[in-house]
């Protein structure tokens, strides 16, 4: 029932805690409030009155929220402290998860690009004004480095976002598979996306290392270290994207079930 969910969300939304903890609170509080509602409905027979009475027995949302917050450890409160999110950063009602991710990551890419340009341009102009020495970065190298860095960060941001979303869909497909064939197909999709992230991690890591090796006038990284770092990134890629897919699955569910609720909606009773 929507009115009961809104009341639960009034309690839980302001709490600074992990998403998993807040999901647990939501489900448990909703179970209790639903049971209160059923008891009140059996007593009065009027759904609107029952909602009002159940919410009244449950307690003031702001007070409960404060008490709930106090039950969360300081470390968790600090870790999940969030400033109020600007409107443009929030997922809009009716916006698909993929569109939201692309929109958000485009902003991230633009902000990074602007920051890199603002930091890099003064260095570039400074380098182009003085006579070039063999042991210094040339203006041409600096230019290629900036462009290369921007390309790598764009590939990382978009590749990660798209693979994370693809992994989320595959996990949802596996969960809701109606037959063994569908389940197996979803499993192989998961394996495929995990392998794709191993490749992506290898490409961006080796690309970034090569860029530094090429532009820095010191022996930045040996061949042995180059391969060690690249292979470590490739090995870490599959579990990382699996975790990202699971996180995105939880976040999409959280939004669809709870965070899209309008807390200003008028309650009956």
């Amino acid at each position, binding site marked *: 029932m929507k009115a009961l969910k809104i009341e639960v969300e009034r309690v839980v939304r302001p709490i600074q805690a992990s998403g998993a903890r807040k999901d647990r609170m939501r489900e448990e509080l909703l179970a209790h*409030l639903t049971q209160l509602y059923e008891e009140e409905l059996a007593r009065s027979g009027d759904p609107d009155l029952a909602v009002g009475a159940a919410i009244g027995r449950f307690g003031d949302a702001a007070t*409960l929220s404060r008490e709930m917050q*106090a*039950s969360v450890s300081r470390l968790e409160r600090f870790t999940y402290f969030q400033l109020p999110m600007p409107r443009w950063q929030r997922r809009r009602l009716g916006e698909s998860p993929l569109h939201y991710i692309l929109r958000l990551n485009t902003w991230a890419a633009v902000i990074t690009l602007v920051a890199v340009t603002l930091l890099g341009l003064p260095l570039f102009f400074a380098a182009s004004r003085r006579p070039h020495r063999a042991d210094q970065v040339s203006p041409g190298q600096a230019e290629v480095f900036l462009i290369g860095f921007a390309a790598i960060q764009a590939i990382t941001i978009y590749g990660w976002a798209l693979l994370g979303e693809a992994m989320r869909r595959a996990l949802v497909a596996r969960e809701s598979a109606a037959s063994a064939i569908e389940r197996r197909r979803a499993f192989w999709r998961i394996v495929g996306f995990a392998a794709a992230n191993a490749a992506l991690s290898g490409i961006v890591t080796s690309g970034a290392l090569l860029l530094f090796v090429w532009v820095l006038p010191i022996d930045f990284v040996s061949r042995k270290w180059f391969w060690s770092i690249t292979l470590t990134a490739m090995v870490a890629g599959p579990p990382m994207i699996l975790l990202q897919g699971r996180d995105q699955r939880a976040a999409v569910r959280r939004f669809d079930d709870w965070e899209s609720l309008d807390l200003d909606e008028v309650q009956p009773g």
Partner: protein
Amino acid sequence: MGTIRGDQLRGHLDGLILASLERGEAHGWDILRNLETASGGMLALKEGSLYPALYRLEGQGLLAARWDETAERPGPRRRVYRLTGKGRRRLAAARDEWRAFVSVLGSLLGALA
């Protein structure tokens, strides 16, 4: 004597929850009903206020919880709480403290009467 409200229970709710779970595991709903029954209807808690206490006790390792996957009723799942060994020791300590408190206040009030 009127009903005992939540703010009058401050400091004692944790002990009451531990005592309620001494006989076995229970959902939040059942814990409240047990407390109501045991108090003869004298306890008037806001129902939601039980959960911050449960989470706090769980965080302190005095309670353990699991989702009730066997529930017959449809809808959101409930969590089942049980006392841990640490919780049993805390309950015993809380009882000793309460006996000492009642004894001291009893003798003082008796002396003043």
